[in-house]
């Protein structure tokens, strides 16, 4: 590679002043900058070096996170070497080095967040021997960025005197900020800490000021509204208005308590200003959403429901419990459904799009819908028709626990020929579920409820549950669905048949 270069001390100051200018520090210039125009003078005891600032990797970037450093201190770098992955407002991009040298110091750690553009992040020197000189190097402090729009900054300033009417540097206002100001009943002077470029007040500044409870100055559209809402305010104060309460809850609790009264007035006066937090959608939910839509759109669904008597099941459970075997209603449901599928083989099928026909599945694999934090997952009980109640019970318990702990193997939740979704524990009587492609049907089981049945002309109380099957009409027709449900109800009503 090309040999070492003797970089004049000049270029050092140039790059440093580059990033100093980038942060706009014309007023609060670090002490060393006064030496910047002296040619050919080294300064202090540091060898010639280049301080790299956070690069603006996209035109709209104002700060970025260092996702990961790809070099270590002391490593040699050349043109084109990737120094770090930087997360910008748009994407994660690579920060490439342009020159040869050695990394003397990394000034911000892995994972550093919100490093403003131009803030020093690394020091590059020409020779490996110069690296040691930078062990305790601290970047010259750059001029502080304009006060952040966080409520903490706003709340830290005396809350009562928060309406420090300091005219912002720039009277320009974008349409979003203008609308936000009008809605909040504030004026430009009320925003104490604009964060936009050149001191422009942005919409975020207005929202932050609202959240911090900045009072509007007299006059403007808020005044008559406040006067009209004053009688309503005491009434509203009793029940804290939801929209106004929501933003402080997202900021700091103590701010909310301090500002409760004026906040509610503000809320009443400002109108329905709803704030929200965005919860990013996880990958799992995204996929669930996609598949549900696909299922609803592509399958012609047939819905049929039937009641199944639970008296026999409850009695069986009591008997088994007396023997120390714990079996839940859901386990019986699974077994009954599996046996019904065995008896009505046409029901244990799937629609094969390529073949254009219903294809019988080789075995009865019943999937149980389990709700976890990340979304709904369906672990499968394979060959349920040939497993005993106790086996099914143990397996379902194990699968559900592991599903909640996110420890399922892929083969344990992919596949299956039938799904059972039980929302009985939430108090539902009946509901219709959405079929899980590529299966052909799903059984939605409600909760047990007290019913009055006529037996032998006499009303008797009992318990029953409603099971609704959502089936792919291409595979099931009415007759098939009802024979399945009838078989299911029969097994449930006479649990002794489930023992065979």
């Amino acid at each position, binding site marked *: 590679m090309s040999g070492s270069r003797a970089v004049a001390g000049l270029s050092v100051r*140039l790059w440093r002043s580059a990033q100093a200018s980038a942060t706009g520090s014309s007023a609060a210039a670090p002490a060393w900058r006064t030496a910047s125009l002296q040619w050919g003078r080294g300064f202090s005891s540091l060898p010639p070096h280049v301080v790299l600032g956070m690069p603006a990797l996209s035109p709209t970037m104002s700060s970025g996170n260092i996702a990961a450093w790809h070099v270590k201190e002391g490593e040699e770098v050349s043109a084109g070497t990737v120094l770090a992955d930087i997360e910008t407002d748009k994407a994660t991009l690579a920060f490439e080095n342009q020159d040869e040298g050695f990394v003397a110091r990394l000034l911000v750690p892995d994972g550093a967040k919100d490093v403003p553009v131009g803030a020093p992040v690394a020091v590059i020197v020409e020779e490996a021997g110069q690296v040691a000189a930078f062990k305790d190097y601290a970047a010259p402090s750059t001029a502080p960025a304009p006060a952040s729009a966080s409520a903490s900054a706003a709340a830290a300033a005396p809350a009562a005197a928060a309406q420090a009417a300091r005219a912002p540097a720039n009277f320009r206002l974008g349409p979003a900020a203008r609308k936000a100001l009008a809605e909040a009943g504030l004026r430009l002077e009320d925003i104490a800490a604009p964060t936009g470029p050149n001191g422009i007040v942005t919409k975020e500044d207005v929202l932050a000021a609202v959240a911090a409870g900045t009072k509007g100055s007299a006059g403007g559209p808020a005044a008559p509204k406040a006067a009209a809402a004053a009688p309503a305010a005491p009434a509203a104060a009793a029940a804290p208005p939801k929209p106004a309460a929501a933003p402080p809850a997202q900021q700091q609790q103590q701010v909310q308590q301090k500002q409760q009264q004026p906040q509610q007035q503000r809320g009443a006066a400002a109108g329905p200003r709803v704030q929200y937090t965005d919860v990013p959608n996880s990958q799992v939910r995204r996929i669930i959403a996609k598949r549900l839509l696909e299922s609803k759109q592509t399958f012609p669904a047939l819905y049929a429901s039937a009641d199944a008597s639970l008296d026999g099941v409850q009695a069986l459970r009591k008997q088994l419990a007396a023997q120390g075997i714990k079996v839940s209603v859901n386990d019986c449901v699974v077994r009954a459904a599996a046996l019904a599928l065995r008896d009505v083989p046409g029901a244990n099928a799937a629609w094969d799009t390529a073949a254009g026909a219903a294809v019988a599945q080789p075995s009865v694999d019943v999937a149980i819908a389990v709700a976890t934090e990340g979304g709904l997952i369906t672990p499968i009980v394979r060959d349920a028709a040939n497993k005993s109640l106790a086996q099914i019970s143990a397996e379902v318990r194990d699968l559900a626990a592991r599903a909640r702990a996110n420890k399922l193997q892929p083969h344990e939740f992919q596949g299956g020929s039938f799904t059972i979704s039980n929302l009985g524990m939430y108090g539902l009587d009946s509901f219709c579920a959405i079929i899980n492609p590529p299966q052909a049907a799903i059984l939605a089981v409600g909760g047990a409820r007290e019913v009055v049945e006529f037996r032998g002309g006499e009303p008797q109380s009992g318990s029953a549950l409603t099971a609704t099957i959502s089936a792919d009409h291409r595979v099931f027709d009415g007759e098939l669905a009802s024979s399945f449900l009838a078989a299911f109800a029969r097994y449930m009503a006479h649990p002794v048949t489930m023992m065979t």
Partner: protein
Amino acid sequence: MALAAIAAAGAAGRSGLLPALGRALQRGFAASASADDKFTVEVMPYKAHKIEPPSNQVETSIAELTSMYELMYTMRRMEIAADMMYKAKLIRGFCHLYDGQEAVMTGIEYAINREDAVITSYRDHCQLLARGGTVKQVMAELMGKAEGATKGVGGSMHMYRKQAEFYGGCGIVGAQIPLGAGLALAKKYEGKRNIGITMYGDGAANQGQKYEALNMAGLWNIPVIFVCENNHYGMGTAEWRAAKSSTFYTRGDYIPGLKVDGMDVLAVKNAVAFAKQHVLDNGPIILEMDTYRYHGHSMSDPGSTYRTRDEISTMRQERDPVERVKKLLLAQGVDAGEVKAIEKKAKKEVDTAVEESKVAAPPPMSWQWKNVYHDPVGIKLRTTTGGYVTPSYDPTYTLP
């Protein structure tokens, strides 16, 4: 080692060995007598279309190589500085960098004179430099300062130097191709023994007006050289995905063409000199320069989403045009200290230019509507704030 690297790069460089003090006596299959400080270098053979290619033995001298190295190294440092300034948000807007392609413009410049016209696309910082501009003019223009090449009003894509017959600097892809043919036609029309060079990229090579220009140039024997700077990627589209035929030197059909190793300044210079002689009497020719850009298409493009970093670093190691000339110089016995001095000087020039440009003043607002029309006939231009201004014409308001 340096020589092995050159050989591995595919362009057969010096196969000679021990440099004599300051002078080289060559051995090896490229042997030729050296007189004074001239010597011969073997470059990659040219691929030709409907023409006899020139010899791939290029004669050059230490003085010429040194001067080429200075220019190319300055170009490289200037583009690196532009990158850093852009990342520091001191340069805004579009910025298309030329690093990696320095050999093309340098080779062209050393084969023609200042009466031959050159026009190129938006990747024009180094063209201005080669055509007599200074780094300060480029930097100031990039930062939008009044001391820039086009008074801070043009920006990265609009740099001109008419007194050196450099016509820019054109933002619309491929629009400069027929313009360049027209410039050459003007030379012929005025009876001058000068040519026009019109430069475009592999992305623009598929545009319609290029073929219209080729047709007219062929028909009327216009002395124009069509230079296709093939850096293998349109913005992000590889040449084989954009063009049915990516042998751009044959795309002229009836127009002869040469394919040149665009990372070797001597190969480029030789080809352009040959082409100049050809077009003066025989009509147009296409030169495809096989080159590479290290940066993305522009500063908004990271440059790594459509090509691997391995590819870029391989290019840097094996075919870097600036390194090649440096190795050649060192192999010829030029003192390493001299080379370093050149580099230092270039760096200082770039650094000074950056510093001066940072503190320079931007152009006054009134320059926005000065010299928009030669004869404004009292019309009014609408400004961005909604008012109207009458443009003025000032004949003394010229470019540096």
